């Protein structure tokens, strides 16, 4: 399909973590079925701005390109989402691309989201198995339980929920919805719940679950439709009970 349609991208660029950001505009040929990542690949192949100035390919994170690795999160037309599943034909032009605003910029659209992985460490988001040697079957699980846990386990650590959350900022140090939802997942697992108390205690205090302001932005932007607000409510209840128990124990 030969057409003269083009795509206009406005990209917020930043050469280093300390550099001042700037905007650059690109105009590339339109092809049916394009997504934002394929547009960025086209820019890389011919890095010339709309006004003819030679520039550098745009740095961005990407890997699977099918919305399951969680790499290519960015702000597209003002919304936190994955670039691979952002189809050009469904976006208003010019398409603006910005890095996440609440994470340190590495370069251009690439940011450091390792805070989430650190948080997962703090809440011990794992099942404490005895070892990898042969210990026979795992615990039985009902279909109903599996169907409840599986959606929680589909979190791709993209951090869209954290970017969109008004409470996730340096002032509150809020841990964010993704981590809380993982606490719900592991606390519900027959073996995982052995660490339930430690997980809940990690969510108490500054930056803990009580920082949530119920804005519900998280659930709105989650590309995997994870019931994040339900997770927060559920874990909020668990944490409260734990706090009461801790109070009487001391």
């Amino acid at each position: 399909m030969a057409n003269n349609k083009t795509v206009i991208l406005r990209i917020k660029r930043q050469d280093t973590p300390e550099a001042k950001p700037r905007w650059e505009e690109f105009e590339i040929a339109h092809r049916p079925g394009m997504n934002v990542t394929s547009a960025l690949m086209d820019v890389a192949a011919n890095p010339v701005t709309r006004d003819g100035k030679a520039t550098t390919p745009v740095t961005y994170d990407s890997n699977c390109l099918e919305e399951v690795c969680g790499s290519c999160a960015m702000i597209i037309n003002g919304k936190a989402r994955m670039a691979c599943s952002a189809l050009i034909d469904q976006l208003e032009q010019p398409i603006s691309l910005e890095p996440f605003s609440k994470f340190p910029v590495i370069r251009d659209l690439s940011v450091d989201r390792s805070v989430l992985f650190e948080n997962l460490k703090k809440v011990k988001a794992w099942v404490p198995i005895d070892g990898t040697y042969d210990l026979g079957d795992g615990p039985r699980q009902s279909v109903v339980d599996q169907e409840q846990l599986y959606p929680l386990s589909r979190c791709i650590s993209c951090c869209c929920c954290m970017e969109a959350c008004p409470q996730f900022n340096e002032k509150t140090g809020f841990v964010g919805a993704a981590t809380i939802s993982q606490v719900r997942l592991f606390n519900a697992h027959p073996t995982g719940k052995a660490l339930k108390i430690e997980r809940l205690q990690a969510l108490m205090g500054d930056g803990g679950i009580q920082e949530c302001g119920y804005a519900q932005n998280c659930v709105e932007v989650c590309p995997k439709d994870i019931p994040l607000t339900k997770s927060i409510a559920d874990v909020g209840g668990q944490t409260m009970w734990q706090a009461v128990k801790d109070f009487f124990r001391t």
Partner: protein
Amino acid sequence: MPQVRPSIGLTWAQVNVQTTDVNLGHRVIGIFMAHPKIIVVGGGLAGLAATIKIAEMGGHVDLFSIVPVKRSHSVCAQGGINAAKNLKGEGDSCWQHFDDTIYGGDFLANQPPVQAMCDQAPGIIDLLDRMGVPFNRTPEGLLDFRRFGGTLYNRTAFAGATTGQQLLYALDEQVRRYEAEGKVTKYESWEFLSGVIDDHRTCHGICALDLRSMEVHTFPAEAVVMATGGNGAIFGKSTNSVVCTGSAQSALYQQGAFYANGEFIQVHPTCIPGEDKLRLMSESARGEGGRVWVPRQAGDKRNPRSIPDSERWYFLEEWYPKYGNLVPRDVATRAIFKVVYEHQLGIDGQPMVYLDLTHIDRKILDKKLEGILEIYEKFVGDDPRDTPMKIFPGMHYTMGGLWVDYDQRTNIEGLYACGECDYSIHGANRLGANSLMSCIYGGFVAGPNAVKYAHNVIKSGKHPAHHVFDSERKRQEEINHRLMHNDGTENPFLLWRELGELMTKNATVIRYNKNLQETDAKLVEMLERYRHVNLSDKSMWANTSFVFARQLFNMLQLARVIAQGAAMRDESRGAHYKPDFPERDDANWLKTTKAYFAADADEPRFEFEPVDTSLIKPRPRRYDAAT
């Protein structure tokens, strides 16, 4: 409490502290504490499996990955993982799994490791279950299993249609636990450049590039485990992730490692063609009853759902009555090619056929296949519950890889390999849902063997000379310097597109010697053009095009191994199909291709080694009249 990490600068400082000494200090500590240090490169299923075993055995792992390990390509695996748990009353057995795998691989795989994998598979599934993988369940609460290609048994455990993601997460969580205990140090955002290998062909560590600062560092270790996955990028668009370039394997091949069976490339029959990649539509769609068809009438423009059954051609079911839509991938792919190119019956004259799920209950589809249906919906815009999907074959997997023995050892002392980057399990064609198992199995073999080897190194008290590290680092820095300061006219991204088109056209489904020879000549020319690559970004900070250009060189070198290996093998076996040599030729070609790099001539050389068929006697592979 959790905080936004104050500054990424802190990370480099920490990294530098650990890496500047190359490194007597660590080694001395290592001897006293007898905690061998082992480097694992790659954080997909195989790398994480190896890491867990090593940490469990008391070793310390330095885990290197281009992306945060949780974002590795294993997340893309969809349909499931095979193990003969025999929970469906079908009389399935590990031997049957073994036989299916060997038969599916057209008898090219050495049999003992395949048997070992199939025997260990049920135990590995139990372990994954204990780790919390949310496998689908039966009403009684047991693991559910479904069918996959190349078998008549329900042998595939699954977690919806995102099984790879779920398995990777389970292993990632266990590794995070070890990381919190100080037994694993992650180096994410690092690219493997080369092994630190001495004149006696012994590996003492690796040389890697910090993908942010672009600095080159060497890292010592008693042993190194490679788990760097596939090489889809050599074919341009594939189902693989961006990081699957085969660059690390190629670098090691250029340093003296054997690369085996490179010519065996799996083209998956059902992919969604896309602008940036080919997205996989899992075999599980057919395992759950999906049917492949085309309209019998060429150019039929009717809505597919309005075309009556009698006017549809279910060609796989017709040609392969016993296996139907679940023939192995190479067989299904060639059938689709035949229908599209010989019978000219592609949908609307385009190279596409229907994969139809619309006859299956929506609720069942949502429970068992949601993840992949969602991909189709998001990227194509149609709901596959209502409309048959349009699919076409695409490059998916490399059966070939670094040569390893039954202990996952390469021919370089101290260097191990596991997962897709090694060649060992799948022969001439991989069966669906065997890759996840082979990754974990390979990691579980490589890890402990690396620890054993490392203990021996510590006991021997031998240390590599400092200059081995220095000279490797200098060699890499010189390559970087040259690339940065080139002032030619070649654009690496355009060169890569050419490479992908060339390889897809001549070195995938149907192969002719003339085309393969032309392909190799073209690759030589492209390697020459590569010397004139001019980067549009010459900065020394998070420069992705620089890193890509480095990978491209290794892709070109490895492409020659694939093209030449294919040209040499005058037979048809599994995924390797030559119309001029349509039969399998056991008399001449029941052997493993081993490519090695002749540095002086700058080209691959080949030798061959017999296949161990001591357990199952080779027999003709016929899915149309299956025995």
